[in-house]
């Protein structure tokens, strides 16, 4: 049977690639501290020795559009090209190509449907920075096959937070029931408080540092009950108009399990938004 080698939740900051590769006067003052935190975070995946990465993210109106919008979608294809013109333009992200694992994708689709999630699928999916950012930070070699899973945190009506948690719990069960002897890391990215295109954007910190502090505590301690008691589709408007991306963190709390304390917790207070990094080892910390 497959083993969940690591569960990883992270923000996906599209500026990291440019900040970390800039030199001289172009290199921002926070770049070195950011790179150090990312390298420590990367090590948490490396030492888990994964064979396959399940990657949870959210398309930012790239391939998925309002004429045909899925709530949850699994990519099932031999390859995934990655990054889009507007991400090259705004963030300097490189074009990439990642291999897919169709067998695991098929297992998740079939058994996810049977478990009560009417998952959409795509056999030709160009993925965006919600998935390539964690590849760049956690596995820059981009040498492992992936199964991308997209969630809709972007185009209302959205599924409720509890549904994201349930999907995370189901993904964990689906990976553990895959009858193939592989080590699978489940990685998902979202946001803490975030404002995009509104009056609170691009401030000295994230738009709601108090929410960010609580969110990091919920995630680090696996406090699903506390998180679900406070977080609703309505409440997520308060910390910032793009904070619904926090539901992908809640999905990953579902993957990690209620009460599961993260084995690695780190954060970095940047302008515009706070970064946060979490790793769990469900089967014990690797030697």
């Amino acid at each position, binding site marked *: 049977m497959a083993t969940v080698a690591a569960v990883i939740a992270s923000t996906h900051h599209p500026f990291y690639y440019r900040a970390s590769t800039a030199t001289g006067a172009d290199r921002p003052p926070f770049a070195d501290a950011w790179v150090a935190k990312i390298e420590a975070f990367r090590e948490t995946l490396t030492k888990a020795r994964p064979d396959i990465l399940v990657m949870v993210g959210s398309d930012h109106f790239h391939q998925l559009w309002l004429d045909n919008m899925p709530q949850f979608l699994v990519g099932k294809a031999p390859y995934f090209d990655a990054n889009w013109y507007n991400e090259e333009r*705004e963030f300097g992200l490189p074009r990439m190509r990642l291999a897919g694992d169709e067998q695991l994708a098929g297992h998740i689709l079939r058994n996810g449907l049977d478990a009560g999630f009417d998952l959409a699928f795509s056999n030709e999916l160009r993925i965006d920075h919600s998935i390539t950012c964690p590849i760049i930070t956690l596995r820059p070699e981009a040498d492992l096959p992936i199964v991308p899973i997209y969630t809709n945190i972007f185009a209302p009506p959205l599924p409720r937070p509890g549904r994201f948690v349930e999907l995370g719990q189901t993904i964990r069960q689906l990976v553990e029931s895959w009858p193939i002897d592989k080590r699978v890391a489940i990685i998902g990215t979202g946001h803490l408080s975030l404002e995009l*295109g509104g009056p609170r*954007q691009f401030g000295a910190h994230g738009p709601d540092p108090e929410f960010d502090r609580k969110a990091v505590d919920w995630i680090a301690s696996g406090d699903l009950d506390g998180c679900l008691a406070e977080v609703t589709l309505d409440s997520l408007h308060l910390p910032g108009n793009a904070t619904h991306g926090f539901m992908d963190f809640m999905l990953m709390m579902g993957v990690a399990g209620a009460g599961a304390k993260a084995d690695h917790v780190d954060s970095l207070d940047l302008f515009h938004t706070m970064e946060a990094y979490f790793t769990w080892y469900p089967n014990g910390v690797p030697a």
Partner: protein
Amino acid sequence: MSKYLLNKFLYTVDRDPQLVERYRTDAAGTVEWWERELANQVLNCVVAEKSTWLVFTDEERAALREHDHVRLFELGAHPFLTLTLFIAMFERDHGPLEYQKAYGRALQQHALPYPDIAT
């Protein structure tokens, strides 16, 4: 009101480098051409099978013609789409993050709840 069509304009322009430049330099002409030629095109269908009913309101058309990101916000256009496209068009005229901060300041009069973006 047609938030969907506003978003469709922003989406289809933002993903095309030539349309980004065309909209930057000739907003009125681009909006007029786009509404006539593209507003009713279903994005993954052949042109002959286009829609027949999509049209901007006068207010929406004016907001697009005037590059008025504040009005687009008020009309419920998706703020991510507006921000991304407007950064592509206007960040180049400003110092680092100047444009993004000014964009936010121009919206300061808006307290929660923001205009509904559901389509």
